[in-house]
């Protein structure tokens, strides 16, 4: 038992160091190299037709904001369709959507009162009605700028591009400590992580909102699976495995509302963790075996899919260390490995970690907000605990044959 615990600690430390190396490569790429050029400046004389989808469930507080923002988008009127989806709302969301649909012919209201709830099912139904060649998705709390629709559509000039992801910037970062911490985390995730993956020709992740995908590619890979909680990750890997490329456009900024309460944050990471891990189960093996992918893409793809599994791995490592402590077997070597692993993990490792955050803050040119960086240790402690609990619960539900329900993130506007 003692030997098993020691071996596990060594394996965990090695895995954490591998992740640490991956993330430090991303940060160094952003600091030391120029970016891979996007196609946002390409002027297309015949812009593609676009359908913007906005899935909404009880979004009366924010629905009019996003619809107003999209109505002033700089894109030819005849090439833009907006489908606002009311997914089983019990508030006035449907009335708001209908009001806008009557006001502007580009907006179409889709009311879903029957059938399966949740974003993947809502999107799937709306895509069947969509007239555009490109599908653009925004969550209801997002505020796209006037030029965003055009800029997100630009990379599709390349026929190999299946999906494009833009950068998400918190709108309410000054609301409280949590939003400030999430602002740092988002900065690292997009400015460093996504952009570096784009630069290194790895797999930037289509994030399900503030992004677009080609409708033909979507149909070719079989659409969304309503059983998966993170339809965005699923689509990313389906497209990649089918030979499409996914690109990231850092310039395409969209503003979002990050959770302002810890409860909302917990629901959000719980959904992400379960959805991402569902995708790991589904796509890890195909990523390793499907021909046509570079070795580095395979490795990075699997590491991306397994990122939430690091939390239970780390929890188990701490339990092992505790066991060794009480049995008197926690030698200096184990302490060293555990320390090194945790330090490497947290300093240059996972969950939009500290090195990436520091790099992102530097690239963004905003000095003051980085002073909160040490407090992110507390935020990560919460994430590790919640992700571990969520994955254990989800595993138990799967064994009992139950389905984990899609949970919406609360709004604070």
């Amino acid at each position, binding site marked *: 038992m003692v030997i098993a615990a020691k071996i596990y600690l060594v394996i965990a430390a090695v895995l954490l160091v591998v992740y640490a190396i991956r993330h*430090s490569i991303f*940060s160094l790429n952003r*600091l*030391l190299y*120029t*970016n891979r*050029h*996007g196609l946002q400046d390409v002027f297309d004389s015949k812009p593609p037709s676009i359908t913007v989808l906005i899935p909404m469930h009880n979004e009366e507080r924010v629905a009019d904001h996003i619809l*107003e*923002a999209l109505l002033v988008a700089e894109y030819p009127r005849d090439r833009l369709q907006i489908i606002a989806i009311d997914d089983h709302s019990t508030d006035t969301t449907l009335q708001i959507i209908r009001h806008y649909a009557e006001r502007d012919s580009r907006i179409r209201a889709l009311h879903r009162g029957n059938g399966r709830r949740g974003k993947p099912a809502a999107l799937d139904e709306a895509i069947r009605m969509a007239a555009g060649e490109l599908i653009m998705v925004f969550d209801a709390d997002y*505020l796209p700028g006037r030029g965003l629709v055009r800029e997100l559509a630009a990379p599709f000039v390349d026929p190999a591009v299946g999906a494009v992801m833009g*950068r998400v*910037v918190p*709108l*309410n*970062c000054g609301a409280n400590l949590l939003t400030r911490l999430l602002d740092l985390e988002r900065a690292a995730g*997009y*400015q460093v992580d996504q952009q570096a993956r784009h630069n290194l020709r790895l797999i930037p992740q289509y994030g399900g909102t503030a992004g677009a995908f080609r409708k033909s590619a979507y149909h070719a890979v079989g659409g969304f699976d309503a059983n998966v909680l993170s339809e965005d990750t699923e689509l990313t890997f389906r497209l990649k495995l089918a030979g499409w490329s996914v690109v990231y456009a*850092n310039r395409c*900024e969209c*503003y979002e509302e990050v959770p302002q309460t*810890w*409860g909302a944050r*917990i629901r959000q990471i719980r959904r992400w963790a379960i959805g991402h891990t569902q995708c790991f189960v589904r796509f890890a093996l195909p990523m390793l075996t499907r021909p046509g992918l570079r070795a580095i893409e395979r490795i990075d793809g699997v590491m991306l899919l397994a990122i939430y599994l690091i939390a239970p791995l780390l929890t188990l490592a701490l339990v092992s260390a*505790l066991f060794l*402590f*009480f*049995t*008197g077997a926690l030698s*200096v070597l184990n*302490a*060293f490995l*555990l*320390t*090194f692993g*945790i*330090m*490497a993990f*947290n*300093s240059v490792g996972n969950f939009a970690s500290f090195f990436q955050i*520091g*790099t992102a803050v*530097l*690239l963004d*040119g*905003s*000095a*003051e907000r*980085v*002073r*909160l*960086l*040490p407090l992110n*240790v*507390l*935020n990560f*402690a*919460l994430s590790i*605990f919640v992700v571990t609990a969520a994955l254990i619960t989800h595993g138990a539900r799967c064994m009992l044959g139950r389905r984990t329900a899609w949970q919406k993130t609360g709004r604070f*506007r």
Partner: protein
Amino acid sequence: MPSPPYHRSYRHLSLGATGIGWSLCCGLLPSLTLLIFAPAILRFHSRWVIALLEWIGIPVSERATYLGRLPVIVPEVGSYAPAHSRYPAVVAIVGCIAAAVLLIPLSRLTPLRVISGLAALLCGISGTFFYFAGERFPYTAGTFADVWLRAEFVVWLIAPFLLSIILGALPLPSGMTLLYTTMTVLYAVWFSAVRLTLLLTLFHFAGLIWMPAAYFFAGFMIDFFYLVGFYSIAICRTTRIVRKHREVWQW
């Protein structure tokens, strides 16, 4: 409708890679100095802990041992755990109840609840262990101080090196990198002595039952916390320096 903040994503800094080599040297220099003067630094650390304990009024003795080939003095204090036989049981029950209140349900969690809940759970486990098998607890305050010194010495060696790697990619002057790595090591040595004194005081007055919580929550966790703190100060400073430079605007 709220107005969006300033546009952030255009900025790209073309930083030179040459600074990394210098920075690594700046990180290795404090580590090398630490290795060369290790006997003196370790002796100073232990003597300081002993002096602080004596100042608090705790009887302390010295034990000579070796860290590899390095001679080390380890402070030894007696543990006067409360004699009442129900003390571990009380700690176990209170710890477990506190952990349950703090950690359940998941929807009410905050970072402080998680940290304090896990600390309470650890105390509960420790109390249970001491209640059923207290005589088999494998450490004394002296062995704790011994393990602490060895582990902290490793942290002192790693910290400047790790910091130099992540500071190396920044356009920070070499002197500044050297300053940050040296400050980190000095703070680590000073803070290690203060924490060890406080923990030995806790063990002396409240018993070894608190050792697991102290080991896991006042040891490496705290080391990591101040390391990130120094890094954030360095990044803040670097960002201000970079603001004065000519910027390269890109995608």
